């Protein structure tokens, strides 16, 4: 209480001086790419909001997204801000431009999607300004849509850029062959590099082995013309497939956000796996080579310059979700262009982004062996031993948890009867537990880095999965049965289906002890932890699906990343408890929090409005159907109270 008041008073003084001279803020006042810029550090040099005044933050405006309350959704968008406008893609792939100071809608682009099903996620947009004056769309917003298109929209008016593709749209289904409705649903913004928009894909997990190709394609950001393609099984095709042929099916797909180095001319692609997730005997040699990796492609040709595999022969759904973060880091030989690749296993790999060689120690360590029925297990896996781990300790029987001895006993029995041999425990006919689970570790929220202080902020989710294979007999021997959640078909494997879920007791309580979420800071000079705390409380969770309003410091499951601002604050939502928080980067102490209308499984962003001189911090709060029901979808904008100028 006392500290809060002190901070408020100190803050008021700082705030008065800060708003008096917005020009004092160095760095960009905009947020022109998903994670700040194509280097994706989630960092802004803006300093108007400081540790001293952040406690005064309040809601400046909010924008309500129209979305049916009962329809499933995952709001994961990070808005862009350029000039006076904030650009947001909505789950239905409509795009709105909002006034940066008021949140009022300046224009709205209606996507009018082709019939599609499945994913309704739009993580964000890309922004591209033509290098020379063009008659149409000198500045444009680019978006991949759930109905498999790449679209260009005039950033000023919201009109489709007619000169791009066919009337503003490029059809991403071309060259893929037959694609079932809902089987190709990109969710991430294109990467912009050297005048190109590079797009990945988005295919369903598990299910079938005839999934569409994971081909990565680059289009001219002005014309929408295909410039290159990277199909792992056809490296000799540099563009569209030859007549009559299609890109190879079921190759590792790049569903998450890429980053790019304009100077080096490289685009960095995080990759997933071939289907199904828990069996891999049939994967092609090329797919094996590039799955669960970060791949550096030549921005001009799409040829592979280097790749680094984070998990060999992935049998855990450990696809790389985190956007590669490109920062220059100190080494014994001076500052080096680095790439930080966080993974769902809770590892953080630090590589030289010119050639992919590790800058901190990576060890190939023996791992448990013995996945069955014709499949094989990689003898070793890479462990980033030169960096702190965010995996959590290995699970023991004593770690089994419950709110009563009865559910804890249930968890102990499951723990003892399933296979668990520490990290990378492979699938087993007797059921298996693996930790971290398929939600991470560190998923698409990635990490945030302040290059001035060489500090990295990491939020990690720590919850095991419990899996077992199920036979067709369990489902009446009907091969086409629609499986109940959380069972998934394992076509292409000797198994009919897999049960894969967070390891929880029948009461819906995690089978392992808290914390379930952590927030940590790492000194990138020494590669040591500066601090690490439980992130989030038990609010909105509880046994039997109850959403109890209790703020017990359990560390919350979290999805989505953090934002760092130059004054030394990390902003983060991401937690199930529905709070949006400001954390002191130096100490890890919480400086401010506010309750959101829905959980914010999205990355925050910030900008300065040059018109008003105010710095805003934005976050999308809309929950998601897997973890928390949406209670309304909002873009929330926070700023310091306005002072007379």
């Amino acid at each position, binding site marked *: 209480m006392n500290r809060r008041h002190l901070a408020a008073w100190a803050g008021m003084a700082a705030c008065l001086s800060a708003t008096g001279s917005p020009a004092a803020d160095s760095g960009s006042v905009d947020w022109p790419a998903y994670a700040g810029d194509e280097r994706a550090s989630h960092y802004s040099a803006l300093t108007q909001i400081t540790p001293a005044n952040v406690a005064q933050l309040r809601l400046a405006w909010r924008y309500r997204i129209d979305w049916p309350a009962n329809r499933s959704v995952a709001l994961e968008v990070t808005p862009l801000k350029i000039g006076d406008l904030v650009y947001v893609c909505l789950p239905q792939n409509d795009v709105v431009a909002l006034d940066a100071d008021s949140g009022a809608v300046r224009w709205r682009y209606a996507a009018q999607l082709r019939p599609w099903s499945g994913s309704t996620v739009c993580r964000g947009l890309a922004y591209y300004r033509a290098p020379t004056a063009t008659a149409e769309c000198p500045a444009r917003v680019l978006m991949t849509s759930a109905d498999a298109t790449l679209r260009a929209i005039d950033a000023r008016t919201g009109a489709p850029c007619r000169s791009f593709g066919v009337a503003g749209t490029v059809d991403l289904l071309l060259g893929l062959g037959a694609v079932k409705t809902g089987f190709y649903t990109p969710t991430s913004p294109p990467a912009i590099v050297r005048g190109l928009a590079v797009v990945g894909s988005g295919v369903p997990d598990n299910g079938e082995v005839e999934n569409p190709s994971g081909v990565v394609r680059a289009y001219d950001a002005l014309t929408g013309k295909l410039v290159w393609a990277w199909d792992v099984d056809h490296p000799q095709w540099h563009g569209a497939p030859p007549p009559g042929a299609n890109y190879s099916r079921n190759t590792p797909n790049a569903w998450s956000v890429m980053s790019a180095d304009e100077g080096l001319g490289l685009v960095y692609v995080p990759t997933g796996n071939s289907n199904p997730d828990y069996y891999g005997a049939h994967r092609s040699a090329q797919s094996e080579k590039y799955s669960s990796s970060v791949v550096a492609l030549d921005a001009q040709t799409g040829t592979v310059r280097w790749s680094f595999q984070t998990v060999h022969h992935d049998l855990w759904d450990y696809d790389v979700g985190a956007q590669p973060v490109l920062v220059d880091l100190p080494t014994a030989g001076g500052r080096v262009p680095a790439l930080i690749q966080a993974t769902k296993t809770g590892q953080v790999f630090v590589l030289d982004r010119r050639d992919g060689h590790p800058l901190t120690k990576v060890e190939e360590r023996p791992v448990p062996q013995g996945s069955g029925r014709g499949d094989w297990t990689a003898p070793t896996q890479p462990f980033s031993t030169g960096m702190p781990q965010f995996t959590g300790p290995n699970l023991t029987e*004593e770690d089994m948890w419950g709110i009563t*001895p*009865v559910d804890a*006993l249930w968890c*102990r*029995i499951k723990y003892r009867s399933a296979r668990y041999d520490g990290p990378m425990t492979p699938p087993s006919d007797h059921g298996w537990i693996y930790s971290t689970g398929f939600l991470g570790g560190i998923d698409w929220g990635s990490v945030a880095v302040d290059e001035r202080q060489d500090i990295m902020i990491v939020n990690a989710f720590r919850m095991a999965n419990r899996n077992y294979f199920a036979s067709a007999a369990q489902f009446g021997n009907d091969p086409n049965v629609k499986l109940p959640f959380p069972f998934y078909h394992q076509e292409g494997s000797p198994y009919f289906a897999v049960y894969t879920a967070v390891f929880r007791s029948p009461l819906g309580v995690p089978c392992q002890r*808290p914390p379930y979420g952590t927030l940590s800071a790492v000194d990138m000079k020494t590669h040591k932890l500066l601090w690490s705390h439980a992130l989030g409380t038990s609010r909105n969770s509880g046994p039997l699906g109850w959403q109890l309003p209790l703020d017990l410091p*359990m560390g919350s499951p979290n999805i989505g990343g953090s934002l760092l601002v130059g004054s030394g604050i990390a902003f983060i939502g991401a937690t199930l408890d529905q709070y949006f928080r400001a954390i002191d980067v130096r100490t890890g102490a919480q400086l401010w929090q506010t309750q959101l209308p829905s959980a914010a499984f999205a990355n925050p962003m910030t900008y300065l409005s040059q018109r008003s001189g105010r710095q805003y911090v934005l976050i999308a709060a809309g929950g998601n159907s897997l973890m928390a029901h949406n209670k309304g979808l909002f873009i929330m904008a926070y700023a310091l109270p306005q002072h007379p100028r």
Partner: protein
Amino acid sequence: MKRYGPAPRAPWIFAVILLLLGLVLTAGGAQLLWLAGSPYYLVTGILMILAAGLLWRARRLGMWLYLLILGYTVIWSLWEVGLDGWSLASRLGLLVLLALFFAFPGVRRRLT
């Protein structure tokens, strides 16, 4: 003829709750021990059934037996997880809650 009903003035609802808890812990505990897990649950389950039987007969010994279970559970918990608050809460929460029942003087007076 043997009497199966609760003794007069016996805390029979509490005894039934304890019996059910004991049965579940015994069955699950046996399975866990079979899987090379902790013997704590099987032992505790059996003692809880005994305690439930004694309380059914309004025997004060049932209370002491329950408190003995609570006592060694505290020691076992500290041995397993040290001072980890969440882990202690999981092991002790329900047992402490049930122990509060004996805090009522009326309950203790009814036991002989």
